């Protein structure tokens, strides 16, 4: 895997693991975008209502949708669009957090496919606290803190359940995560179903919605970002998400705690042998992962103006599953997750642009976005190809065996791809409503 400069004895830049991760992520994204473009062209050629011009516009929007500033004289115009930029950052928040959630679990040898459930539990806890605690008596910022804390705790507890089952009874966390996801979906629907005082009854036509936190005066501070990106939904949540990502990075790489978790994830037996409490580590990993997914939901709904559609009939939030491709795209690196999360949300924006500005309908747009997500999740496989090139020349291990980490990654990528597919097949009303208010 390593190429060494014969003169200095140092590793060559292009053969470092970091470079390979970034390169493979970029290559996957490019492949995804190209495939998205091909789908646009294919659909454009087969549908009569789409003109050649419309098709070219679609292609442009796939690559530069973020910079679209609308349509003037029947021509798309491009430039800095503060609304798109701001919305991209805002919608990136939950993706960054669920991406972190999956990444942390991966790093500690666990596959957290339970992010959607953790996200939902946190949504309920956050909204409940933020709406019920009266801002007349408690300062709004304190309610915000309580609600945020409640969301994290709810997510962490929900994540700890599969962790506990894994640690004590050695039940595969994937199975329990999937089951807890659906339990969460039912639980949350029921929770809101029986609490009429949480429902939005003030506005007509808002049947099935929960009140916004802003109705109780609780909103995330804008931190000046609204000046930078006027007209968008962005707020300080993105700053908080980035800070959390950096803290997680520090925790995983610089602290004894992170070392313990990783040791346990890489080889539970050896960790146990060394006197590390393997059971506690597994539970802690899953609780942290759950807490992160929970924080994502909290930050999303505490923005004040995002609405939760409670009457979802047990669908799972897309943000939860999308954490998996985000983590894969970032090679599970917490800092990489920031960029990967924002990229995923950029795709959302592109999809919206395609939908609203061209003759492509929303389903086509979704398919295009889904295929880009799908291919982006192949970052690990691309990395393996890059790695293999280096490996052929550079392997000094004579007793070579196939690298189990790579096999694991391949399996995970396949699983994630399956999930994304399954997920995209489902309608996800909750997400739609949030952004389109």
């Amino acid at each position, binding site marked *: 895997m390593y190429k060494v400069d014969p003169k200095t004895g140092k590793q060559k830049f292009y053969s470092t693991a970091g470079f390979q991760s970034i390169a493979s992520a970029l290559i996957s994204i490019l492949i995804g975008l190209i495939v998205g473009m091909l789908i646009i062209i294919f659909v454009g050629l087969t549908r009569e209502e789409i003109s050649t011009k419309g098709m070219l516009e679609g292609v442009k929007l796939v690559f530069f949708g973020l910079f679209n500033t609308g349509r003037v004289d029947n021509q798309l115009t491009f430039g800095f669009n503060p609304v798109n930029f701001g919305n991209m950052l805002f919608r990136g928040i939950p993706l960054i957090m669920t991406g972190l959630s999956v990444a942390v679990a991966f790093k500690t040898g666990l596959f957290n496919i339970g992010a959607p459930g953790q996200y939902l539990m946190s949504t309920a806890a956050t909204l409940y606290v933020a709406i019920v605690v009266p801002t007349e008596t408690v300062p709004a910022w304190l309610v915000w803190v309580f609600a945020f804390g409640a969301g994290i705790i709810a997510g962490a507890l929900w994540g700890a359940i599969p962790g506990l089952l894994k640690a004590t009874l050695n039940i595969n966390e994937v199975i329990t995560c999937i089951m807890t996801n659906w339990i969460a979906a039912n639980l949350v629907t029921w929770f809101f179903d029986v609490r009429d005082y949480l429902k939005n009854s003030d506005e007509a036509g808002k049947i099935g919605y929960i009140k916004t936190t802003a109705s109780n005066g609780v909103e995330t501070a804008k931190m000046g970002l609204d000046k930078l990106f006027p007209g968008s939904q962005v707020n300080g949540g993105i700053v908080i998400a980035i800070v959390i990502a950096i803290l997680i990075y520090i925790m995983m790489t610089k602290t004894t*705690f992170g070392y313990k978790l990783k*040791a346990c994830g890489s080889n539970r037996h050896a960790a*146990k042998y060394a006197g590390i409490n393997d059971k506690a580590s597994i539970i802690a990993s899953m609780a942290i992962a759950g807490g992160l997914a929970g924080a994502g939901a909290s930050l999303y709904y505490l923005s004040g103006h995002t609405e939760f559609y409670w009457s979802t009939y047990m669908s799972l939030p897309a943000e939860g599953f999308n954490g998996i491709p985000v983590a894969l795209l970032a090679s599970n690196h917490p800092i990489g997750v920031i960029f990967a999360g924002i990229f995923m949300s950029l795709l959302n924006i592109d999809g919206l642009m395609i939908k609203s500005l061209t003759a492509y309908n929303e389903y086509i747009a979704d398919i295009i976005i889904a295929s880009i997500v799908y291919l982006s999740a192949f970052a690990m496989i691309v990395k393996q190809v890059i790695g293999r090139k280096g490996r052929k020349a550079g392997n000094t291990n004579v*007793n070579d065996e196939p690298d189990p980490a790579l096999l694991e990654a391949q399996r995970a990528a396949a699983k994630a791809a399956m999930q994304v597919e399954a997920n995209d097949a489902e309608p996800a009303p909750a997400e739609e409503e949030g952004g389109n208010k």
Partner: protein
Amino acid sequence: MSEYVIEMRHIRKEFPGIVANDDITLQLKKGEIHALLGENGAGKSTLMSVLFGLYQPEEGEILKDGQKVRIHNPNDATALGIGMVHQHFKLIDVFTVLDNIILGAETTKLGFLQKKEARKKVLELSEKYGLKVDIDAKIEDITVGMQQRVEILKMLYRENEILIFDEPTAVLTPQEIEELMEVMRGFAREGKSILFISHKLNEIMAVSDRVTVLHKGKCVGTVNTKDVTKQELSTMMVGRPVQLEIEKKPAEPGDVIFSVENLTVPSKLHKNDAVKNVSFDVRGGEIVCIAGIDGNGQSELVYGITGLEKASSGKITLCGQDISGASIRKRSMTGMSHIAEDRHKHGLILDFTLEQNLVLQKFREKEFQKDGFIKFGAVRKYAERLIDEYDVRSGQGPVTVVRSMSGGNQQKAIIARELDRDEPLVVAVQPTRGLDVGAIEHIHKQLVAERDRGRAVLLVSLEMDEVMSLSDRILVMYEGEIVGELDPEKTNPQELGLYMAGAKRQDKEVE
């Protein structure tokens, strides 16, 4: 027709920074057992991987029956009748023995497996060569020795004529080694040609016809086994004269540091207890060896002592403290180092770097952390010191990923970590398993040095030589019980063998 079934001429294989094989020529005659001897990292496995098609050599050629051949991948090798038993078995744990043997060479009819024929053929082969296997058992449930027989049957099933054995005895008990050698002799009589990779001189002397010795990637020479002595071979292999017998002063046992009273540990495999009511003491300044055939409760005894498994009853005392119910961490802090039996499962985290592995227990100590943050500088310095002191060799020093290191150096890293912790008791389980004579000499010297510094050493070993040369007292375990305590000065391998096989036992009163 050439005299040689396989000829590898002037093979050169390079990896960046390393020439693994430098102009090596190896000639294998039909019907001979040809040993390939060399230290860890001498290039034996690389050479065999070239022959098996796993690597392409930069220079050199391979001839089969005098015809030049190209071997691009293991399928080519199989087509040429070359089979290999790898050091780490390539078996699927959850498949049965039969399924593993036929995997990749299944007979099918209309896409359906024809297991009946396969079963018949495997049973015949197993009968013919005395390779006893439980054909319907899953791999995960059978012993390592039987797994190896499965690997051998795999080669026979494919009707290979050239059989490569990569360190086949590293994981076997003395009895199994004896059986394996008999099987190998049988193959040779039948005209099959065998390449036998090993660094165990006894076995090479016992079984091989000729030996090719490698040293640091170069061929030192090929000799007829009957013309050389063990000492000569070891000198060729290591490049310097090696002490085959460890020199040590008589032990001066001090106070009892560690004692076990009536320890019973349940078995994970069956309902009986794996360790039954075992009691013994270890004093400072002595090496007490638990001898026995693999699977007689030694592993479970160690698990019970170190806390990896819960003992069902009994009392364990270390440095005057009762640690019977203590956690692994508590035990280790009270004064126990543990060189684990399975270095890949328990000893190391293979995907971590060397320095991370060297602080596996110590990372929580003040020296290496402040307020929960790891002091990377201190870790690096410590790792560099250990690497230097214990001569752990690796590609990139402290930041080498342990997975890429050779087995011998992985073991050295574990030994460095455990001995440097300076605890009064060292529990060493098969510390030299799979290592070459140079490394074994080194480790034996270290264990004796630790003894002379007054530490108590509890050694668990399956190697008769090691037991006889290293220990000050021998406790023989048979079916979970200690059946005898012997003085290595007054006993001999034959007597020890009788105890190990359960044919002889001392009464409980004789202490």
